[in-house]
């Protein structure tokens, strides 16, 4: 993948946040404890808020009159630019926490760097969202440690979750030298953050050469189309209606 336009770059960040929000919101009424129901809803709301800012701006960059809802509800999966990581099903709580750990350990340095970039709008969004990402990372880290170093069962599940999700990390850092922030430059910080958490959690990083990708080019897993079918069904059933 080479040289994405500012529109595509912004769209991909917005799509990451939107799909992450949709998955996290699925936990509502299902979390392991009531406090966690509230925490996951908080994180979903943060991601959704970021998605709305990013998609709105992406629509303006594109200049074709598409607003946040047109971009969220009226594109098919081949037009979505999110990473595969966020569209993976929630799995058990350990899988969700592994996904959140990796996503937030990527989004935090990304938004932090964005806050310093030349594009004022992206800088403003980054400056707002990096604080939220810091909380997401904190929350996910705490749970990964609790589960990794909790009971025998939780350790087994947490390690299995890391093993399952880890391969999807590679895609996040594909080089994009022309972008306001080149994701490849964030890898070292990500690795340091994650290594510290996994070590404290008594977990290991799997050795694997498998690095599934394609999300940034609109080639997704089978899961995304189902997610979008559910998310978009009502909006699409009433073309042009206001809500």
């Amino acid at each position, binding site marked *: 993948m080479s040289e994405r336009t500012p529109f595509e770059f912004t769209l991909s960040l917005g799509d990451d946040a*939107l799909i992450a929000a949709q998955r996290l919101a699925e936990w509502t*009424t299902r979390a392991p404890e009531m406090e966690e*129901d*509230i925490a996951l809803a908080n994180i979903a709301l943060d991601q959704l808020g970021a998605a709305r800012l990013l998609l709105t701006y992406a629509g303006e960059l594109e200049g074709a009159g598409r607003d946040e809802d047109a971009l*969220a509800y009226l594109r098919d999966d081949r037009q979505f630019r999110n990473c595969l990581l966020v569209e993976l099903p929630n799995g058990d709580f350990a899988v969700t926490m592994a996904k959140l750990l990796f996503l937030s350990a990527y989004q935090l340095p990304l938004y932090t760097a964005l806050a310093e970039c030349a594009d004022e709008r992206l800088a403003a969004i980054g400056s707002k969202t990096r604080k939220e990402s810091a909380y997401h990372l904190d929350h996910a880290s705490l749970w990964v440690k609790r589960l990794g170093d909790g009971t025998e069962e939780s350790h087994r599940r947490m390690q299995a979750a890391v093993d399952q999700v880890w391969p999807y990390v590679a895609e996040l850092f594909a080089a994009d030298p022309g972008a306001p922030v080149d994701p490849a430059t964030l890898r070292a910080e990500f690795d340091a953050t994650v290594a510290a958490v996994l070590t404290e959690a008594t977990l290991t990083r799997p050795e694997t050469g498998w690095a599934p990708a394609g999300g940034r080019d609109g080639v997704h897993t089978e899961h995304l189309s189902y997610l979008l079918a559910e998310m978009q*069904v009502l909006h699409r059933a*009433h073309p042009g209606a206001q809500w």
Partner: protein
Amino acid sequence: MYGNDFGAPEEASGGGLLGEVEAAEAALREAAARQRRGAPASDDDLAGFFAEVVEADQKIEPRDWMPEAYRKTLIRQIAQHAHSEIIGMQPEGNWISRAPSLKRKAILLAKVQDEAGHGLYLYAAAETLGISRDELVDLLLNGRQKYSSIFNYPTLTWADVGAIGWLVDGAAIVNQVPLCRCSYGPYARAMIRICKEESFHQRQGYEILHTLSHGTPEQKAMAQDALDRWWYPSLAMFGPPDGESTHSTQSMAWKIKRFSNDELRQRFVDMCVQQAEILGLTIPDPDLRWNDERQAYDFTQPDYDELMRVISGDGPCNRQRMAHRRQAHADGAWVREAATAYAAKRAAENKEKVAA
């Protein structure tokens, strides 16, 4: 949100009720400022002191002596209210993934999250009466305590999310505003906070219906269909008619309850009629008309046999709601165990550090 069925536009919709919440809050502060007679004179004076505090519209606090039946009544009522918040997340949560705009999705997600917060807040209020949240959750899961029956109805369309906000939260507020003056301090204070948030919920529900009823013909039909299905179950939220209500008399004497089920139901109907007109929707009651003599609307009573069937477990969604809650609780067991084990390990480490 919460009813008694267990066992504005902008201003027209609940503006007056919010005023009542604020008045109750002011009264609470005044009551706190007036000195209570310090304490019972002796052990023989306990019941007398209790009666005096209630009579003077002062608040009973957790450390105070209280009749055992008063304590039990409050535990039952506050717990049922907390359970209702938690189970009540399900019917609306059903539409988060399909909300028709990102803005609506965000508002709905925040609303359902508020309900979880209300649940936690109420469990904490119940815990001041000497029972633990775990015990209360068990009572819900094994069916020994109930939640508001309204949540045993399904949310079939997006308009149902609006109808729940407008009618169900509206009924809950009418029910709860008087509870802001309840004689038990922690409950009264919880209700003030919750009523303020519920009035936002009611407003957003009303706004959803307003948008639909002024939208496409399909959207308007969706809104009317929701009103048709939710109207009578909402009226039933106020509980059985006064003659058949089992807990009412004693609760009124203790100032836990301040108005009868029928009084509150009437207040709700009177409030809704004008709002429905502004919405351009028709309340599904051919006998609904203004009674000049009573200065209130005459209306058709809900089907109380249906209410009793739903309470006893045979509503459309009772089994589904309970199965969902039990499943979430069971699925989360290993996570809660891990958190406990992790905390124990950290505590043991700290102990070693202190000893060393």
